[in-house]
C-alpha cells in the first residue's frame, strides 16, 4: 500500500460505508438511467476490480434486464405476468445496486480492517465489539446449522413425511442446540477475550493502518458527482416541471 502507487484495488471500509449511504438514496426516487447511471456503476466498479468479475457481470446483466423489462416489455403485458414483471423490475432497478454494494461490503472486508478503520473514526467500543463478534460468529452458526441438519437427517427428519407432519418441531430442534451453543460461546469467548486484554481502557493500536488511497478518493468523487446529478435532477426542477 506504499503511497497508493500500486494498482491493487483496495478500498477502505469507511469508503464502502459512505458509498452505501449514497447509493441508499436511490431507493427513494425513480430516475432515468442517465441520471442514476453513475451510481448504478459504482458497485460494478468495486466488484469488477476486486476479483468478483463474475458477480459484477451478473449484476449488470440483471440490471439491464430489469431496465429493459421496465421500458419495453411492461407496456405490452397484462395480467399476472405483468404483476410479476413489475415486482421484479422495479425491485431490481432500485434495490439491486444497494444489495450488491452490501454484498461487496460484507464479502470483501476483513474484520481486522473493519475494526481498524472504525476505531480510527472513533466509533465507540460498544458498537465495534458486537459487530466484530457478529463477523466472527456467523461462520460458526453456519457450521452448526449444517451439523444439526445432518443429525436430523440421521434420525429421519430430512425431506420426509415424518418432518412435514410437525414443522414447528423442526424449528424447535434447530433452535435449542443453536441457542445452547450461543450461550456457551458467549461465555467462553468473553472469558478468552478478557484474558487477552480486551477490557483495557487504553486506545487500541493496529497492525493494519486504515488509510485512504487513490481508489478511495476516485470512488468517493465519482459517487459524489453521481449523487450531485441525482439530487439536481430532483431538486433542480426537472421533476417540478
Amino acid at each position: 500500500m506504499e503511497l497508493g502507487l500500486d494498482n491493487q484495488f483496495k478500498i477502505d471500509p469507511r469508503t464502502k460505508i459512505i458509498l452505501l449511504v449514497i447509493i441508499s438514496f436511490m431507493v427513494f426516487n425513480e430516475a432515468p438511467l442517465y441520471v442514476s447511471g453513475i451510481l448504478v456503476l459504482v458497485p460494478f466498479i468495486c466488484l469488477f476490480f476486486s476479483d468478483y468479475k463474475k458477480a459484477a457481470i451478473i449484476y449488470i446483466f440483471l440490471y439491464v434486464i430489469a431496465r429493459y423489462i421496465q421500458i419495453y416489455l411492461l407496456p405490452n403485458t397484462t395480467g399476472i405476468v405483468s404483476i410479476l414483471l413489475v415486482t421484479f423490475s422495479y425491485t431490481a432497478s432500485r434495490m439491486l445496486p444497494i444489495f450488491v454494494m452490501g454484498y461487496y461490503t460484507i464479502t470483501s472486508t476483513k474484520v481486522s480492517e473493519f475494526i481498524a478503520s472504525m476505531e480510527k473514526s472513533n466509533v465507540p467500543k460498544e458498537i465495534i465489539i458486537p459487530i466484530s463478534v457478529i463477523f466472527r460468529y456467523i461462520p460458526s452458526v453456519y457450521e452448526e446449522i449444517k451439523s444439526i441438519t445432518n443429525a436430523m437427517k440421521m434420525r429421519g427428519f430430512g425431506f420426509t413425511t415424518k418432518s412435514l407432519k410437525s414443522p414447528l418441531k423442526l424449528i424447535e430442534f434447530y433452535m435449542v442446540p443453536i441457542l445452547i451453543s450461543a450461550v456457551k460461546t458467549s461465555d467462553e469467548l468473553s472469558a478468552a477475550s478478557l484474558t487477552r486484554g480486551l477490557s483495557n481502557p487504553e486506545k487500541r493500536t493496529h497492525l493494519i493502518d486504515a488509510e485512504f488511497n487513490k481508489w478511495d478518493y476516485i470512488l468517493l468523487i465519482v459517487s459524489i458527482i453521481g449523487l450531485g446529478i441525482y439530487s439536481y435532477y430532483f431538486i433542480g426542477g426537472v421533476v417540478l416541471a
Partner: protein
Amino acid sequence: MSERFAVKDLITVGIFSVIMIVLIFAFGMLGYIPILMIGLPIIAALICGIPFMLFLTRVNKFGMVTLMGLILGIVMFLSGHTWIPIVVFTLCALIADIILKMGDYSSVKNSIIAHGVFILGVFGNMLPFFILRDYFLGAIAESMGNDYVNVISPFLTYECLIVLVILTFIVGCISAYVGKLVLKKHFEKAGIA
C-alpha cells in the same frame, strides 16, 4: 471500557444479534416471493421470540436491548438494506428497553410487550418496499387499467401498513410468550437460563 457495559455484555449482544440476523435472513428469503414479502415482519416476529427471551435472561441493565437494535440496524445497512433500518430498529429497541426498565428487567409481561415492540424494527427493511408502492401502482395501472389497481391497492396502502404493524406486534407478543414457555421447557431444565 466504559462503565456502562462490560466486555461480556457486548459479546452477548453480538452473539444474540447473529442468531436474530440468521433467523431474519433465512426466513427473509421467503420475502423475495412477492406476496410473502408483506408477511416478512410477521414471520420475523414469529421466530425471534425464543432467542429474544433467552437474550433477556442475560440482560440486567438499561441499554443492552437498544444496543442490539442499533447493531441489527447497522448490519441491515451494511448488507444493503439502506440506512432506514438503523433509525427504525434503534427506535423500536429503545422503546422496548424503556418498557423493560419499567418492569425492572424481571417482569414477564413487560418482556413480552418489549419483544412485540422490538420486532417492529424489522419494518425498517420493509419501508423501502412501501415507498416503491406508487411506482408499482402506476406501472400496473398503465398496463392493466385502474380497475385492477383498485383491487390490489388496498394491500399496498398505508392503512395496510398500520394493520400489518398491529398484527406484527400481536404475533411478536405471542411468540415471546411461546419463547417463555420454551425457556421453561428447555433452557431452565438444562440449567442455562
